[in-house]
Structure formats: C-alpha cells, structure tokens
C-alpha cells in the first residue's frame, strides 16, 4: 500500500511517501496510525497526537474508523489551512 504524508507529518517522518506491507489485523485508519507509530521514533513523533491527524483514502477524506480494505493510497496530514 502507498502511504503519503504532508506538512509537519511529512517533516516528522522524514519522507513524503513510501510503499508498505500492511500486516493482517490492521483494519481501520486508526489501526494503521497505531501500527505506524510503532515503526520508529520519527513515526511515534508524527502520530503522537493521532486525534488531530487527518487521513484520506484514495484522495477522499476518511474518518479514523474508516476501513482501509482495498485502499491503494492512504494520506496522512494535519488539519488543512488553505484558502
């Protein structure tokens, strides 16, 4: 699965995208954030306040309880500040 990161999530992780193999049992966006947090200090730092991190599945906003089944790309980013 392709993961993409933006703004300070990207800066904390130190990369803008990566391909990962998601283990069995990771069903939702929240599960995925928890799993990523355990991949190293930079991920733990990026997701330390997981409740403020927003996600998009295949370029659509997704809530933390959304299923990631069948997703090709998941994006993680802080609250948006455009306009």
């Amino acid at each position, binding site marked *: 699965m392709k993961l*993409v990161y*933006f*703004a*300070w999530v*990207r800066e904390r992780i130190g990369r803008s995208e990566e391909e990962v193999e998601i283990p069995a049992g990771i069903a939702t966006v929240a599960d995925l954030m928890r799993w990523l947090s355990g991949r190293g200090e930079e991920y733990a730092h990026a997701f330390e306040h997981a409740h403020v991190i927003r996600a*998009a599945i295949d*370029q*659509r*906003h997704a809530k933390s309880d959304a299923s990631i089944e069948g997703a090709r790309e998941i*994006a993680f*980013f*802080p*609250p*948006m*500040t*455009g*306009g």
Partner: protein
Amino acid sequence: MAGLARISVQTADFDPGAEAEALSAGRTDAGALVTFTGLCRADDGLTGLELECFVPMAEAEITRQVAEAEGRWPLLGVRIIHRHGPLRPGERIVFVATLSSHRRAAFEAAEFLMDYLKTAAPFWKKEHAPGGPRWVAAKAEDDAAAARWTTPRE
C-alpha cells in the same frame, strides 16, 4: 452541472479580472457575479508563505464541493483557482467566482466555497517569519464558519 466549473490548482499567478470576465462574457441570463480573492498578508513580520498541496486530491475534493454548491444554489458558472508553492506578502493565493441569476445565490455559494477551501481542501501553509518557519495552525473560527453550512441558514 460540474461541467460548468473550471478548477485550477497551480503555482502561477492569475488575472482575477480576466477570469471573472470569461465567466460572464456573452451571457444575458446572469444577474450577479461575485468574486473572492485571497491575498497573502504580512502579519507579524511575515516575509512569505510556502503553501504545500496534495494536488490530485485538491482537484478532486474541490470538484466535489463545487458539485455540492451547484446542488444548493442555482449557479450559472463557477471558477476556482488555488495556488501552491512559495508566495510573498501581497500576492494572490486563491480565487473563487460564482455566477447566478440573483445576488444572494452568488454571494452564499462563494462564501460556502471559501469556507470549504479553508477547512477541507488539502493545502497547508508554512509561514516564514523572523522567528523561523512555522506551520500555520487551523483556526477554530474557520471550522465554525464551515459548520454553519451543515444546518439550514435563517
């Protein structure tokens, strides 16, 4: 309806007058054209902005939100431009134009689209200021402004 809207996510500047003119040119059914231009302010010694964007998602999300606006108001045309990349104080950042038979629809749709762009389009502002670069925090007032469209007004 979505075919009425043209959406651009780009690094280049744009010409608001020409964009507005293109929207209404040759029509005799439109009575109201509203434009919003967002500009980069030099608050607190800001020397510039870096606007990060998830480009394909921004295009898709804005397209969906324009379709929502077209379902709510009788619009004859919509034009949206959102820049990303480096921006200096005084530069244009964003442009929304709405064309309708009547002014209330044009005003409300433009405000709706701007409230949406502030809170749900995938852009992130990093400010360059004397104290060093910092990511702009989302504002509660912007969430409140967007939330007023989820319940009927008046």
